[in-house]
């Protein structure tokens, strides 16, 4: 479906109107004489006022650049158009500029002011693209300008601009490495950023500029772990490999005390976590206890990393899977590494380049952890259609995996390979058989027999390879194999491959005592053909001669002297050297008697059998998955994977300091106060703008909460150990739920914002402060947990026991941050929700409170009772209407909102037998007869929570199903509205001052 190109040089221009005069341009590129003229044309086109002509010219210029032709002489003409209105022309000018600015530095400066203007643009995308181009222009003069721009962009309110700033950092660093210190400051700042958009890019910058500054990571470690799952794939790879290095410096090796770990890891693990949850003090105690190292306790942060990366094994990106695999290989306890095998095997279905890299890594892993891949043995079987390089790698893996039990299967498979048409592969197979034979004693004889059979193969390469391998095998038990040596000796007549000939000669020399009659004869033959042999063979002939001279000098003395004399005049100095050396050794002379007496010992000393090893052995000192590992050589910029520390560094460095956060959140809140509430939620919508345009943001909020909590607790259900980790963070599942609900409420609130206002403030107008503050609120619930306990505790409002009016006031106070004197009565974590709800209530009920039953329930504050999926199409939400419940003044009125998203009507909705804690009572809503598809309805029920925050649990029944649901009131909802005059209000407020 290749569409007609908008422009094709070879066809001599397109047929658009107004271009006829340029249509005759030959422009085929091959005619150099016309080059000059053609460029004139282009200049002319660039100078016109018509955008279409400019575009045409730019397209042709870009096509030239793409083919690697020089278009630099057009620079002045092109750079003029940098401020062109047409967006495509502009983009192409950028392409040109970035390509040639380095060569034409002075002229490039002309364009800088345009970008500087762009940096101030109200639109975040324009700011970002201006920064992107500005930083891509490699002109040293503008370094200060770039530095300034980066610094500014790093504190931009738009995460996209901040991401661009992160990208710009390595660019500036490569231009001028003197800026390093300043850049590190910016990196440090950006590392603290809590948006997923920025995380990957800034870690990339970190890796390029200051990978040694591992201390910058401490404070951000937990955040990075938690964000990881939501970062885009490329960022994930970079972050994971950086965290691997980090973990190697900060945690203890999980493989030490392996046995102890297996005995009872759980208990010790839990114990330590609980300690830690109590506070930083006890954590230090735990750290102090660590050096004793009995039993090994995995640092909870270490566990966090392993737990949060595990789901990424299911990523579609091979690079991410590999990154996680190497992380597990380098960091996980032995028992857990196994999970990566399945994912790696899956990658073998991918493109052959991916296979190549994965197999290299599997080969290294399979040496260390053979058991891991054993169940997948058959996935490494070779197809005749595989490329040779893949075949050889698979063979390597198969050989590594072979053991006593599976060797018969493996050998049977090897038999098939030996008959392949691909001779390189056959040679590799023979070597693999040799390796299996040396490693597994049981099959040694079988293999040897098989290899001997191969000696009669028609292909010389196969035979030669077999000889070499047989030689190695024979060294292990030479005594029994006189026959084979004889057989090999016969082969010298036929085999021409030098390596094989040399091997045979060496064998005969070494074991001449086993073949006393044949050996001299072989020497005779070789002496005859000595001059025609390859160097390697000649050396072995000398060797053989020397050995025979020592054992059987009677028969071979003359032959040896003949060979040595021939060698003396050889062209190759190695051979001449060897001949001279050997003669001195073996032929007794007047002075050198001492040595020659021991010559036999020297030459015929028992030699250890060679160990056939994988070429992938010891490759694992390189970080797996890295370029250096693949090349088995250190690549430029490779960061060594450090060894585990002997003693764990202080784990408390990763604790995010609470006071600092309190301060910051205080500040945020204050700013918030100055602004209308809307703008607050606006700034927040920055990174999720696409959702805004969608009126029904239900789904969005859903996805968000799931993805967010996904990072935090994704595996917590499955992993027992993880639970207490969550606890340690001060997040019980309840509080998390309420947090999520709080999120949702925010979303709802946003929904209500008028369209126009949103447009304005989301992209441009919203000032720095508001967005960054609210943003941090949104993306950082992991941080929040850390913040909450301390920062919120002070301001916890009194629960429903005091007069309702007073309560309202206290909530206002809360806003002012004059902490009420009342002691907190409820768990602090709940408060954030209640606060959000309260603030919301305040804004939404600005209008006079008119009590009316069944007034349309505002979307704000709606919380989920039953998810539509769990409810099989029935979705139930509830809100606290903040109106008196007509039946009973002690009851809180709750609006229950039902909607049916299934395609069948839901009948007979009613409340089933409630199981209520003491004191709580429920006034049920009247049964709803039927709810047809797509319809929704609202019912009111009253709950007397008895002024506690205990949840009211009850069943929601339909005709067919029962759902267990529970409503837990936030503290702020346990109230009744009271009317009072302004004066009365102020009076009450005065009483609440808290002094």
């Amino acid at each position, binding site marked *: 479906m290749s*569409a007609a190109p908008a422009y094709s040089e070879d066809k001599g221009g397109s047929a658009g109107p107004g271009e006829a005069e340029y249509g005759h341009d030959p422009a085929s590129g091959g005619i150099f004489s016309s080059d000059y003229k053609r460029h004139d044309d282009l200049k002319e086109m660039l100078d016109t006022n018509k955008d279409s002509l400019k575009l045409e010219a730019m397209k042709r210029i870009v096509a030239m650049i793409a083919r690697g032709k020089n278009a630099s002489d057009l620079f002045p003409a092109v750079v003029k158009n940098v401020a062109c209105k047409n967006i495509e022309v502009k983009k192409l000018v950028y392409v040109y500029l970035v390509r040639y600015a380095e060569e034409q530095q002075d002229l490039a400066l002309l364009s800088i002011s345009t970008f500087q203007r762009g940096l101030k643009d109200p639109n975040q995308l324009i700011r970002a693209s201006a920064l992107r181009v500005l930083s891509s222009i490699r002109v040293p003069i503008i370094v200060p300008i770039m530095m300034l721009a980066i610094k500014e962009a790093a504190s931009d309110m738009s995460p996209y601009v901040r991401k661009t700033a992160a990208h710009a950092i390595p660019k500036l660093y490569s231009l001028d490495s003197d800026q390093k210190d300043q850049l590190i400051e910016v990196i440090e700042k950006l590392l603290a950023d809590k948006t997923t958009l920025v995380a990957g890019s800034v870690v990339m910058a970190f890796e390029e500029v200051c990978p040694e500054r591992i201390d910058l990571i401490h404070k951000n470690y937990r955040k990075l772990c938690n964000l990881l799952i939501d970062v885009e794939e490329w960022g994930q790879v970079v972050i994971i490999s950086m965290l691997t290095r980090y973990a190697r410096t900060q945690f203890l090796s999980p493989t030490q005390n392996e046995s102890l770990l297996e005995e009872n890891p759980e208990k010790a693990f839990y114990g330590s976590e609980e300690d830690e949850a109590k506070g930083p003090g006890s954590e230090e105690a735990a750290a102090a206890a660590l050096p004793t190292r009995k039993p090994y306790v995995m640092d909870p942060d270490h566990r966090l990393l392993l737990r949060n990366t595990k789901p990424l094994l299911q990523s579609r990106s091979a690079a991410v899977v590999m990154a996680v695999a190497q992380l597990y290989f380098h960091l996980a306890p032995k028992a857990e590494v196994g999970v990566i095998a399945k994912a790696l095997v899956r990658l073998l279905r991918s493109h052959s380049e991916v296979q190549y890299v994965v197999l290299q890594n599997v080969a290294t892993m399979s040496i260390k952890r053979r058991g891991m891949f054993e169940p997948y043995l058959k996935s490494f079987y070779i197809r005749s259609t595989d490329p040779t*390089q893949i075949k050889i790698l698979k063979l390597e893996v198969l050989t590594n995996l072979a053991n006593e039990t599976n060797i018969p299967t493996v050998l049977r498979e090897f038999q098939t390979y030996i008959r392949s*048409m691909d001779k390189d592969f056959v040679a590799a197979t023979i070597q693999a058989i040799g390796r299996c034979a040396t490693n597994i004693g049981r099959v040694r004889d079988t293999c040897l027999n*098989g290899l001997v059979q191969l000696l009669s193969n028609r292909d010389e390469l196969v035979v030669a390879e077999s000889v070499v391998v047989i030689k190695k095998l024979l060294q292990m038990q030479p005594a029994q194999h006189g026959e084979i040596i004889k057989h090999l000796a016969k082969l010298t007549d036929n085999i021409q491959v030098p390596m094989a000939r040399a091997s045979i000669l060496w064998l005969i020399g070494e074991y001449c005592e086993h073949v006393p009659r044949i050996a001299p004869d072989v020497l005779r033959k070789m002496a005859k053909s000595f001059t025609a042999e390859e160097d390697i063979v000649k050396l072995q002939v000398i060797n053989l001669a020397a050995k025979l001279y020592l054992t059987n000098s009677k028969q071979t003395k003359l032959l040896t002297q003949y060979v040595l004399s021939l060698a003396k005049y050889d062209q190759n100095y190695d051979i001449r050297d060897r001949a001279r050396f050997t003669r001195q050794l073996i032929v007794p002379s007047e002075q050198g008697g001492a040595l020659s007496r021991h010559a036999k010992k020297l030459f015929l000393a028992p030699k250890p059998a060679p160990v056939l090893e994988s070429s992938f052995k010891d490759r694992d000192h390189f970080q797996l998955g890295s370029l250096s590992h693949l090349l088995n050589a250190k690549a430029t910029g490779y960061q060594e994977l450090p060894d585990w520390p002997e003693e764990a560094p202080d784990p408390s460095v990763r604790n995010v300091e609470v006071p600092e956060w309190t301060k910051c959140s205080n500040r945020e809140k204050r700013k918030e106060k100055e602004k209308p509430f809307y703008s607050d939620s606006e700034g927040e919508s920055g990174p999720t703008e696409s959702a805004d345009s969608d009126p029904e943001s239900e789904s969005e909020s859903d996805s968000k909460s799931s993805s967010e909590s996904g990072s935090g607790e*994704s595996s917590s259900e499955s992993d027992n150990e993880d639970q207490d980790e969550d606890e340690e963070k001060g997040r019980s599942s309840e509080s998390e739920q309420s947090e999520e609900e709080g999120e949702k409420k925010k979303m709802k609130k946003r929904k209500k914002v008028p369209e126009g206002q949103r447009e304005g403030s989301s992209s441009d107008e919203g000032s720095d402060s508001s967005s960054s503050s609210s943003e941090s609120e949104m993306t950082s619930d992991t941080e929040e947990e850390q913040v909450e306990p301390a920062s919120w505790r002070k301001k916890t409002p009194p629960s429903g026991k005091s007069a309702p009016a007073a309560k309202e006031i206290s909530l206002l106070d809360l806003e002012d941050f004059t902490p009420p004197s009342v002691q907190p009565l409820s768990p602090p974590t709940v408060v954030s929700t209640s606060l959000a709800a309260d603030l919301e209530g305040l804004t939404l009920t600005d209008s006079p409170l008119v009590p009316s039953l069944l007034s349309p329930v505002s979307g704000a504050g709606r919380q989920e009772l039953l998810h539509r999926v769990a409810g099989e199409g029935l979705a139930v939400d509830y809100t606290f209407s903040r109106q008196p419940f007509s039946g009973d003044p002690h009851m809180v009125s709750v609006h229950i909102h039902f909607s049916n998203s299934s395609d069948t009507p839901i009948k007979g909705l009613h409340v089933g037998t409630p199981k209520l804690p003491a004191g709580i009572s429920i006034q049920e809503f009247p049964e709803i007869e039927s709810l047809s598809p797509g319809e929704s309805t609202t019912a009111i029920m009253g709950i007397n929570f008895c002024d506690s925050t205990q949840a009211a649990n009850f069943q929601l029944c339909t005709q067919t199903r029962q759902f267990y649901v529970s409503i837990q009131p936030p503290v702020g909802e346990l109230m009744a509205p009271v009317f009072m005059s302004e004066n009365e209000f102020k009076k009450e407020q005065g009483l609440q001052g808290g002094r």
Partner: protein
Amino acid sequence: MIHSLFLINCSGDIFLEKHWKSVVSQSVCDYFFEAQEKAADVENVPPVISTPHHYLISIYRDKLFFVSVIQTEVPPLFVIEFLHRVADTFQDYFGECSEAAIKDNVVIVYELLEEMLDNGFPLATESNILKELIKPPTILRSVVNSITGSSNVGDTLPTGQLSNIPWRRAGVKYTNNEAYFDVVEEIDAIIDKSGSTVFAEIQGVIDACIKLSGMPDLSLSFMNPRLLDDVSFHPCIRFKRWESERVLSFIPPDGNFRLISYRVSSQKYVDGSTRICHHISVCWVELTFPCFMLTVGYLNSSLLPLAMAHEETRKNCLVAIPVYVKHSISFKENSSCGRFDVTIGPKQNMGKTIEGVTVTVHMPKVVLNMNLTPTQGSYTFDPVTKVLTWDVGKITPQKLPSLKGLVNLQSGAPKPEENPSLNIQFKIQQLAISGLKVNRLDMYGEKYKPFKGVKYVTKAGKFQVRT
């Protein structure tokens, strides 16, 4: 990270270059050409080549080499994955990833590359975002553009880049709202000489084509989700929901994309330390082969093709092989001819016809020509590449298709030692061989009723019969 990219065609012309940092001279590609020459075969060019100052990481796609220049340490898979993503994008934009298509659309290619990488680090790789930035060329648009002078570059700024659902563009609108899912399963198998299965597994993918307005939230559930034990997901899928409920819940990208890919294996993979040993009957046999005799004990693992697994028996689920092949290929010693006889037939086809059957054989080099008669379909033999292709078509159990005849060998050359292996292609419509079944698709978040459809296809993947 990625410094430069060169696109090279099969004849060794560098027809496109793009630099993200300082310009690297084309001469760096000489190292690549050197390696290519050494490798003899395009498939064997090592993906990573080390040169004195740079590293070259290359992929081979659609008869083109994508050679990227790297200067510092970077995970090779990162680059390889990216290059494939580039090729996929070209495919997506131009319908094919060929030299001609790239040359015709060189400006768009350049604009794409510019957006995909910033300073060598990937920036926007999601096709939905790219399409918002740069509109794919269509015939209509190029006509309109040439008349009105408008451009392919989107003038609205892409908001998708800013959202936390980067894969979906905003403001999608369709008059017909449709969601289609193709469940495609491929059987990878190695069948040995005697017809028993050495290795078999099912590689499945679910490709989706979603054209839904607004911001739909879909959840797709299966009748037998436990079948899928090794799955990789598109980033849009909520991993947690899958973990807890085995439901695929996602806000889809707009258009075509691969939702999941999965593997159903014939082997019983046991995770971690708990290894359940199933009984293995060990028997001693003597295997005689022309040149290699081994006496070995081999494990007769229960790997013979069996009926498809039910959910309960998943632990032992095995792959049903839908075809069998009878073959006899022999070459006579000291004569310049050989015999070739292959018959193919259906096995357990579950009431579905097997169609699109093709047999491909890479004959040994000494084969000069083949003189065969098919009872069904047609065959071709390429004397240069020595590839025999037999296009069989549909298999009916009543009349089994066969291909018989003589093979002419180069006279004087020794007879080939190995019999070639047969690569088989086939297709079964309306069947997922693993038994996977989609239960239902629910949509939330939007009011309209979408049109939904699921299609199942089973194909042969790397299906090889050793002879």
